[in-house]
């Protein structure tokens, strides 16, 4: 029921209120009441037929950076030891 799935926006209509999203070749109707300025091609988290958040490209990079930082910190501490 409450599994959120990342899906791509493939169609938007009704002035941005509704549209179609797609993941793994499956298309389904989705409501966009809670997201502003959505564009075709954006990724959203879909929850019970409703997009609850947009996946932001900028933040996705930061997310990766956070992982890298963790791992780089890891390497430096290793070097410290040697």
């Amino acid at each position: 029921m409450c599994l959120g799935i990342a899906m791509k926006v493939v169609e938007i209509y009704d002035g941005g209120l509704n549209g179609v999203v797609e993941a793994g070749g499956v298309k389904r109707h989705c409501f966009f009441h809670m997201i502003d300025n959505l564009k075709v091609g954006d990724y959203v988290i879909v929850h019970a037929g409703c997009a609850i958040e947009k996946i932001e490209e900028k933040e996705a990079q930061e997310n990766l950076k956070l992982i890298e930082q963790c791992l780089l910190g890891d390497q430096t501490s290793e070097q410290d030891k040697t």
Partner: protein
Amino acid sequence: MSKIKLDVYNDPEIVRKLSNFIKKEAAKLEKPIRIMHICGTHENSIVRFGLRDLLPKNITVIAGPGCPVCVTSSRDIDAIIELTLKEDIKLLTFGDMLKVPGSRLSFFRAKSMGADIEMIYSIFDGIEIAKKSSKPCIFFACGFETTAAPTAAALRDLDIPNNFYIYSVHKYTPNGVYALLKSGKISMDALILPGHASTISGLKTYERFAEGFGLPSVAAGFEAADILLAIALIVKQINNREAKVENAYNRVIEYEGNKKAQKAIDEVFYLTSSIWRGLGEIENSGYELKDEYKRFDAKEEFNITYTDDYIEHQKGCKCNEIILGNLTPKDCPLFGKRCTPYDPIGPCMVSDEGTCKNWYDGGLF
């Protein structure tokens, strides 16, 4: 076309590196730690990716009250089944509620006894069904803030037919978990914050967990690397003697949450006390319709009666201890024997977010 690469979060190389990092950091821990997540979907990912096997012995990850299906009280299930059997109405429900046992019956059993119960994927489907039906249609509105928000937005923004009602058992996770912490019913050394529920509420509300209880609290997504990253940040905080809220899921969660969703919820619902299955009544943890939206309230429209003799858990079922993280499914003598997803005895064996169901599906006997 978007360039967002979502698969890196499952890259085996990154997963291996993160797990090595955690092992190294964990070696500095002064005592073993227990990290609780409060999201059923996290348990699903943890079992699916076998993440517990990647963690050192001194880190235990436990599942908390993270599944809305598991915490829906038998009292509410019984009352709505009774109504559906008695009156000429149609009940609309999410699929994972169907097999959840009430005191005597599940929706599924009631359906076989003639109750008109239909499974829906979203409230939007439910509204369409009501438009075509001549009967009153009641949507059993179950779920945390992630589902409460779509319910609220639909009631506020859509054309709703006169025969459509909701029976709200929506719950607000942060207040529920906060109350449990305060009561001492649950304890842990750190929290993994729910990925999707937090997109709605934001992370600010969890500052009271970090500050009030000294709990490092880190929000995580649902891929292997997401969860390991959160654990890595938690162990780092503990070693640095810190307790703060951090976001390991920036690509989705904003610190302030989704303002539009919060507004929809605030306009339609207010928070009041609510019964959590096996945990009892918790103040300010349940969403009820505000006066302006009372006309959708099945609790007002129909003569719903409650009895005190409802049974939350059958004899032997340990769900109430499992959702508090005090026991694991393996501690339940019925697990995988008398209790399976095909014939569940407790609610935790039903939904895909239930801990027992996840452990059963993952073959963790």
